């Protein structure tokens, strides 16, 4: 099975297994009350929902690329961004190793 294609993670069963807790936390943010609790006390929320220190740290550092590498699914990870008011472009650019500004500049150049 393909694990990566053209520089992007293919969300395999192996990745899904590795990222299960992270994705489950992201899924919990489909509930508005959970979003509120997460934003009010990030560290407490992440601990309460069972993330380990490494996973919680990825979230706290907004390390989107790291979250994908740890098994985060892009459709779930953007729920974390959404709760924090961070747009998809910023997340995507980060996974590509760029800042949002770099990404937008690169697109303008096309």
């Amino acid at each position, binding site marked *: *099975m*393909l694990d*990566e*294609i*053209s*520089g*992007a*993670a*293919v*969300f*395999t*069963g192996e990745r*899904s297994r590795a990222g*299960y807790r992270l*994705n*489950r936390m*992201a*899924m919990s*943010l*489909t*509930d*508005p009350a959970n*979003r509120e609790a997460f934003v009010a006390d990030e560290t407490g929320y992440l601990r309460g929902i069972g993330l380990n220190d490494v996973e919680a740290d990825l979230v706290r550092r907004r390390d*989107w690329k790291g979250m*994908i590498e740890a098994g985060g*699914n*892009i*459709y*779930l990870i*953007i*729920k974390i961004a*959404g*709760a924090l008011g961070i747009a*998809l*472009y910023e*997340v*995507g*650019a980060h*996974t*590509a*190793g760029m800042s949002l500004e770099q*990404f937008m500049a690169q*697109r303008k150049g096309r």
Partner: protein
Amino acid sequence: MGRIVGGIGSSHAPSFGPVYDKGQQKDPMWAPLFDGYVPVRAWLEGLRPDLFIIVYNDHGNQFFFDAYPTFALGASEAYPQADEGWGKRDLPDMRGDPDFSWHLARSLVEDEFDPTICQEMSVDHGVMSFMPMLTDTRWPVPIVPFAVNVIQHPVPKARRLYKLGQAFRRAVESYPKDIRVVVFGTGGLSHQLQGTRFGFTDPNWDNEFLDRLETDPEPLAGLSHRDYMERGGTEGIEMINWLPMRAALGPAVRRIGRTYHAPMITGYGLLALEPA
């Protein structure tokens, strides 16, 4: 007996909905796309459809990886909108037709397709984003949502989805009531939401796909997931959701409408066909 009277392929995207809700269809960035939906909507209304079968994919909203179904068939009276993590749009629940859903379940299982049957089911932008462009949002026509796993690999093969469309046709034609059914396939077109190629679209591939889907679809069922993901991006694998729509129509089709526009990070496509 039921009859399949039309097929529509459409992209879906979270970006669509809010643009539509704000009435920005004439915004220069979006008009080339939204304009394409106008004649297709008029044609669809003229078909006087009784039911929509919508092949789509969920994005971690109704389903999670605790138990992710490969195929899931809605069999509910109503399909509320899922909160995807940023609140809901102001849209009523979509209406269902559980009688037809259970007929479809029996017919599919007879045909050796075994979907998870959902008597409670919310639908996300996979359904809700483009449907307001094609029908009144009081949802006069009931729907049967059919979710395909295209986000957690292994995902079903393109050929499996092609055969699924043929099975839809047998199910519709074996229904005792004289209903007029339109089949939808939604996803893609090319897009890549993460990795070094983030933001990638390929209008050439998207248009080739639209050409081939209309005139010679069967070989598209023979393409591998690698083919789809290399040419259309990892998330572009959603394009296989269009295959059941096309297969359900039978070999010969007439094109009613086609639009393509790629203003952001997704190739948006619309294709409306009817059996010739």
